[in-house]
């Protein structure tokens, strides 16, 4: 009995060995690499530069 249990445990641990880096499917959550721009766009400096830039599209 113990041998079967141990054997099953061993088989299970081998089978599950590669599963540490599995992506668990969460619908709607972005799975890609993170974009540094997302954080940059939270900075006041960049946001204000972009706001100023829109003015160039106004008729002068």
């Amino acid at each position, binding site marked *: 009995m113990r041998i079967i249990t141990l054997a099953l445990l061993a088989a299970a641990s081998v089978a599950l060995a590669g599963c540490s*880096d*599995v*992506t668990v499917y969460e619908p709607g959550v972005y*799975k890609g690499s993170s974009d540094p721009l997302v954080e940059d766009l939270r900075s006041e400096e960049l946001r204000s530069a972009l706001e100023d830039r829109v003015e*160039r599209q106004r*008729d*002068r």
Partner: protein
Amino acid sequence: MKLTKKTTATNNESTSALNGVLGRAIDRRAFLRRTGLALGAGAIASALPPAMMRRSQAQAAREMVKGPIEIKRSVCTHCSVGCGVIAEVQNGVWTGQEPDFDSPLNLGSHCAKGASVREHGHGDRRLKYPMKNVNGKWQRLSWDQAINEIGDRLLDIRAKHGPDAVMWVGSAKMSNEGAYLYRKNAALWGTNNVDHQARICHSTTVAGVANTWGYGAMTNSYNDMHNSKCMFFIGSNAAEAHPISMQHVLRGKENGAKLIVADPRFTRTAAHSDQFLRLRPGTDVPLIYGLLWHIFENGWEDKEYIRQRVAFMDEIRAETAKWTPDVVENVTGIPGEDVKKAAQTMAEHRPGTIVWCMGGTQHTIGNNNTRLYSVLQLALGNVGVSGGGANIFRGHDNVQGATDFGILSDTLPGYYGLSEGSYKHWARVWDVDFDWLKARFDDASYANGPKMVPAMNLPGITVSRWFDGVNETDENVSQKTSLKALFLWGHAINSQVRGAEQKKALEKLDLVVVVDPYPTHTAVLPDRDKEGMYLLPACTQFETYGSRTASNRSLQWGEKVIEPLFESLPDHTIMYKLTKKLGYSDQLFKHIKVNGEEPLVEDITREFNRGMWTIGYTGQSPERLKKHLENKHTFNVTTLKAEGGPCDGETYGLPWPCWGTPEMAHPGTHVLYDTSKPVAEGGLNFRARFGVEYQGVNLLAEDSWSKGAEIEDGYPEFTSDMLKQLGWWDDLTEEEKVAAEGRNWKTDLSGGIQRVAIKHGCAPFGNAKARCKVWNFPDPIPVHREPLYTSRRDLVDEYPTYEDRKAFWRLPARYGSIQAQDFSKDFPLIHTSGRLVEYEGGGEETRSNPWLAELQQEMFVEINPADANDRGIKDDTWVWMDGPEGGVIKLKAMITNRVGRGVVFTPYHFGGWFEGKDLLSKYPEGTHPYVRGSAANDAFTYGYDSVTNMQETKASLCQIRPA
């Protein structure tokens, strides 16, 4: 399980194109459907996907190139608006474009062409090195070999047949320095056979307008249209030909202006109009008289303005009386009520401006059209007023400059003409001996109409008929022999008509030299059985530097963006090499420093500053122009005047006339003929060019003068004698007196006469009236004449064309003998042509740019549904178009209501096909444009303006049948 990315090899199979979401029925150009299959296996280098694939070398500039970004500022090479281009260059590679927000002309904006100029820095399909045609194949040769061979052939032809056997066709895409040098070269070679695109574009404008009030250029500017209350576009599709101008036009609309468009087609410009008048091609004169009829009938004309500043309006009234509303409706096809409404709108919304382009100029009566448009504005008092004027939109980026510098067969630079006095003036400026110069020309005299004129003073052959100059027999040409050699220097041939005859001519010539960044349609059209055809790679304006003149007469200095690609060279360097071989480069470059083989551009600018007194290209020194380049942002966008800053008080680009020497620092003239300002600040009045009186009519202005003029009346042009009479002679410095003695405002090389006249508030060119009657033209008062090929046979007797004539621009010219034949049964459709926004001119350059070529992949004809159904033609199917002279082209049918029944329209930008056959295999390896197609002008016909020899490409006939 982890989701991993896969890598795969490139899959080269073509796939079926995805249809656009909104389908073809709505989108005219439907480029979503045509996603490249039409091009077959033509190795489109750029069709690699963005993700994960290696870019082709030519494309992925930025990824390959590291290094700091240098900014270079140039000017778009595609049209006369003169949009600023900001180029980002890294390690000599053009890697990016940024909007030139600071430019007051385009404010950062671009159309499809301007937004794609960076492709010039890739230049996949460029002509890369000199080539010559040997037994139908293109062989590469070195520059030195090419120059030697070409030079030997030229000298041989000169010895056997004289200098007039060579035709030098130049380019509207040369810089001012290049254009000036080119014209000078033709004079030193010894011929007046030198011409360029202006001939087939606005030659009738320049002749017509200059002969009405003094100068033949755009009177106001694109920006000034913000001030207009009414804008009348006739024969101009600015939305496609001058897209950035529409920014200014639409701003004008938002300021309350009314927009009226007269065109045979409901163009994209008409789509923004308040009123659209669908006009039968070739009936501009009746329409304008129709408007004048209402204006005079209701007393809407500006009587005081006419009394002071216009002569012979009464003769216009007399002609107008014949054009009653029902007559106008019969001839033009426009309902009488609509003409009345347009006239009333114009009368009630002043100042108003008129804009015309090829729709008005490209006719046998083009000069009548342009004069009558001007007369309309004179009647309304709209000339010389901000928001008014004759806003002629010129074509290529430097056609204004090339015209001003005289790449024209009837004048030297500056519109001085071809008289002995003109040559003497320029001989002084060039510091060449006049007798030496004279000896360069054939000394015999030849017919010019009924008179005999020495070759040196005889207007040469025009580019519109260069091939007739080749094909005609020697007896019929007003020079020693027909043409034996042709330079097509920056000029396409598919923008001229009668392709089959051009083909013959190219096969007959002993020497054909194409100098161009691209091989052009010229390279593939002929089937020559002898050697003597060469292709020389010229570089674009982005690979050199210099000044170019926009349509509003502003000069802009462009910096060099990148070094010339492959083995291409700038125009001025090629001219040095060639003339060195020909033996007169020391004369051509006498006062122009040559570094190695490259002439110094600024020295050329300075040389023309010393000679271009007639139109005031004297004040725009390189230094002043570069200062404007540095300070674009300081110029007001509506007035174009610098408000503070280093250029304070100057007008952007120092638009000519920029009087006097650079030291005098004239600010340039924004609005021409504006008497509300002093001449010193850009004010003016009409030019005294036609004498002081004619048949008892006083031609000088009455009770009208520019602000602050000390002569409060009309006055003739300034001469040294006149200065003495006025007691102003002693205002000249001693040096100026020496130069000015016995001379006038045009020939005084010190500029003193101009300076003193302006000091006293006067215009150097006098103060006169505009004249509605040009007594030396075939039709002194503009009249209507039916096009040579017309479908209205019932009108031919009442409005016949001219009689055939001999020795007109050195060739016999037919008019009546063609119109006498009735072609309307076999060729019932009126054929007119025009532009597309994606392409420019002959099209080889823009069709070689994949970003543009993708948007317009096939040559087509716009045909009305009724006409299509009458012929069993379905949309987007192949058809043949037959012209009445045997020209035949194959193209796609586009069924649209844009054209009215009985009228068809073709874009003229396509080339690389002949009589339905794609000439792809005849291009030098790797230089074929992405898109090729039939040349519209192959189906167009004979017909030349009665004054300037402009071709009649807006009103011909054709038939269309399914292929």
